[in-house]
């Protein structure tokens, strides 16, 4: 209950900023009254607002989902709230070291959340996540140190002003900073060679936490990438073709992860790999750097958060009802839970990008943006990625409709699944349909964000 009240309070605060932010203004708050270059300042602009709305929306649904499960006690909610608040902190802060601190807070909270069930496998998965993330966040700290030594400030605006000068004098150091940051944000958002923690952590975490990981934590990595790359390197590196590097990573993630998703045995691992491939899709849009590409990327971030969290919740309910983890065991789910199966079908069609669901709109933008660049190689890869995604989702759907008699696992007692869980899943499907039919709802939110990214 306290968690819900906290959510309501922050939603209220956010909504007070809504009108002026959507009109294109920027709201600043200096912590402790210290002005910008010295103290830490929080700032709400179009981009932050867009992500904040996403976090509040998905966060609320995650909270509601976990309310119905008696397993989750006070410790769970406090950790969840820490995670959500540090995500909001990442989104609002204007100080690069503060960004690092919030990221570490988020990471610590999510390590504990993943191991919430105290099983050996969850602890192994969480440990892998911990080691990998900390190893790469040292890189981020290093890049902050380099920037601080060059500019003498940790404030993002101050650094951004000085970077073109540094690039003129010594481009190599900017490359180093860029690479270090790319690796550290890449591990958060699950770019191809750094994706390895995702399937392990997603499949072992409790269901609401899988939703949190896929829906929000990956997106925060993307937020940091968008914010810092476009602020720092927008005028220097990205206009000189480094976007191609991001596109390359995007393509590799897309193809590789959809190929891996096709042959996974466990449903949650399959969903996790599919997340990576969708991230690849978003990275292509980010790397293009055009108005349309960024619009598609931001839209797809929003859609993917809704779709994938919903899919994880569906899978979670099915697992807790049947006790099965593996796709080929989930036969005849249709007879047992028709509503849930329809929801799963709807959400996976949205993930493939079938109209009139929301995934279609964002994929349309990205494809259009690529077409405007006349790059047919990328188009071919997108083709392949979409078809592989379709194949891996229909593999699951056809298993759900298979005729075999539904049976529970041997000596398994199904957990009672309450109304809260079902309500959340239906809400996700409803939102997907709503946004698919009225994409203007989200596009109006994206426009101010685009103005921030491409001034």
């Amino acid at each position, binding site marked *: 209950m306290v968690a819900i009240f906290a959510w309501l309070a922050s939603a209220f605060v956010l909504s007070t900023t809504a009108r002026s932010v959507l009109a294109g203004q920027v709201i600043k708050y200096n912590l402790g009254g210290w002005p910008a270059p010295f103290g830490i300042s929080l700032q709400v602009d179009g981009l932050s607002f867009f992500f904040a709305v996403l976090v509040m929306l998905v966060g609320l649904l995650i909270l509601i989902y976990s309310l119905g499960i008696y397993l989750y006690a006070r410790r769970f909610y406090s950790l969840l709230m820490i995670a959500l608040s540090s995500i909001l902190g990442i989104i609002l802060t204007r100080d690069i070291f503060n960004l690092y601190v919030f990221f570490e807070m988020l990471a610590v909270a999510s390590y504990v959340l993943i191991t919430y069930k105290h099983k050996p496998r969850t602890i192994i998965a969480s440990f892998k996540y911990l080691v990998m993330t900390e190893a790469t966040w040292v890189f981020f700290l290093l890049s902050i140190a380099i920037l601080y030594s060059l500019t003498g400030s940790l404030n993002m605006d101050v650094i951004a002003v000085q970077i073109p000068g540094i690039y003129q004098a010594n481009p190599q150091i900017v490359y180093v900073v860029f690479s270090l940051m790319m690796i550290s944000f890449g591990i958060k958002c699950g770019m191809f060679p*750094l994706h390895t923690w995702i399937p392990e952590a997603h499949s072992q975490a409790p269901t609401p936490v899988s939703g949190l990981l896929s829906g929000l934590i990956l997106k925060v990595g993307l937020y940091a990438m968008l914010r810092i790359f476009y602020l720092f390197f927008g005028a220097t590196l990205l206009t000189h*073709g*480094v976007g191609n590097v991001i596109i390359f990573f995007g393509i590799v993630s897309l193809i590789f992860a959809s190929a891996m998703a096709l042959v*996974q045995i466990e449903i949650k691992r399959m969903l996790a790999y599919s997340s990576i491939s969708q991230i690849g899709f978003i990275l292509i849009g980010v790397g293009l750097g055009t108005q*349309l590409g960024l619009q598609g990327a931001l839209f797809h971030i929003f859609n993917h958060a809704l779709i994938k969290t919903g899919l994880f919740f569906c899978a979670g309910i099915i697992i807790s009802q049947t006790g099965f983890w593996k796709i080929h065991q989930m036969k005849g789910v249709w007879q047992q839970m028709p509503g849930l199966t329809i929801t799963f079908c709807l959400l996976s069609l949205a993930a493939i990008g079938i109209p009139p669901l929301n995934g*279609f709109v964002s994929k349309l933008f990205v494809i259009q943006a690529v*077409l405007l660049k006349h790059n047919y190689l*990328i188009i071919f890869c997108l083709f392949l990625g979409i078809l592989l995604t379709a194949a891996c989702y229909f593999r699951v759907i056809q298993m759900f409709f298979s*005729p075999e008699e539904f049976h529970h696992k041997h000596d398994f007692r199904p957990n009672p699944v309450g109304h809260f869980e079902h309500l959340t899943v239906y809400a996700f499907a409803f939102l997907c349909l709503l946004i698919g039919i009225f994409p203007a709802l989200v596009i109006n939110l994206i426009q101010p964000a685009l103005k921030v990214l491409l001034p």
Partner: protein
Amino acid sequence: MIFPTSFWPVDSLSFFMLIMVTMLFSLVFVYSLAYVKRNLFRYYFVLLMALLGILGTILAKDLLSFYICLELMTVAVYFLIVDNTKKESFPAGFKYVIMMFAGGLFILVAALMLYNLTGTFEFAVFARVAHTLPAESIKLILALFVIGCLIEIGAVPFHVWLPDAHPIAPSPVSALLSGLVIKIGAYGLIRMLFIFKLGMQLLIWVGVLSMIFGVVLAIRQTNIKRLLAYSSISQMGYVLLGMGIGTSLGIGGGLFHILNHATFKMLLFLCLGAVIYATRERELKNLGGLGKRMPITAATFCIGALAISGIPPFNGFASKALIVSATAGNLWLKTALIITAAGTTAVFLKLFLQVFWGELPAQLKKTNEVPAPMCFSLLILAGICLVVGLFPGPVLNKFVPLTGIALLHFEFWNFKLLVDTTMAVFLGLAIYFFGVRFGLLGVGEGRGKENSTLLSYLSVDKFYCGVAALIEALCNMLKKVMRRSLNVYLLWIFMALVILLFVLWCPLWKITI
């Protein structure tokens, strides 16, 4: 940027398709009332969704709406195909849905490229600015679009989903697939080709290939619905041939054949559906002599078979006559047409004799005529075949759009055409009797094995399945290569960093991608 979608331009082409779809769809509904017994809610829900998709594609004012409704139809039809939820229905549905998505993506990319050229998706604007666009890019766009539509139609060499999906679907759904769903691709093709005024050599080739290929493969089938599915491929070849010729006679003939094929193929599927409903048998060798037990089905099937073989006075003759005349004396095309017509005659002679003639097997002694709603649909469809066949001229001029002078005064009861038809029929009879004599038809005794191995070399299906198996093997290999170990993961991270630095320091990235 928001892409608007818009509907409702009822011009003569969509009016024609609209009449056809609503008429035939309502017959499928009536038929389903008696045929479908389980999962009624799901079945009718997706059936209505398929109707929505089909009507949407026809009423779409712009290419994007066309694509959206096409995908809606694809998904709905997938769930109709797997409605039986048998073990073998899922691979067929899987093949269908993946190929359809691929086709849809081709169409989407073509649509977006056209948008980039013209700034709109609207058909009307395309028609206005068509002559100002650069010819090279139009050719590329049309090629993409045509490939997409050919996949939707199920033309050779993209036909592999068709013979798998038809037999496994419930019979009204097979009728729907053959009658309406594959026509939507043809509709899109006609719309675009008519806007850009391009007759396509490619379509002639694909059409002829589909005609011959379909009928050759149909002759040997022993599963009754699979046989009809192959025959659908061959009949869609006529439509493509007509469009490829591109004269008003050709396109008009193609459109007329869309209508006629929809009616008689639907009739045939529903008849065999009635046979399956009454006997639960799909294999030719278990059927026979049903003519006496099911007179209405047998009579209507006979009409359908005569119509598809192009024998007057049924509707198949009329549209085939138009297409034959459109070839304008090209000997090769005419030969191909006559061979296909002969083959079709042989196929349906075989089907009719094996199912309705001959001796009634012992286990089928208690077979009865099917319920009234099914008979109703069959009779109406047979009536349409007869009426259109008797009065082809008025029907053509009333409903089929794009009527040119050549079409207005077309003489259907032409001596030359009748000679051609007679020739085809006798050739067909000859093929049938020789086929039975030498065991080439898959019925009776005789050598089957050598022929089937011969035909399996022709199979394109193997190629597609091979590609799919290859992809899966590659994915599995990838899965094995990726070791789940923390050391490897950390190695990946450092390698990524090193590669990134290397790529950025050397100006490689300026030339790559």
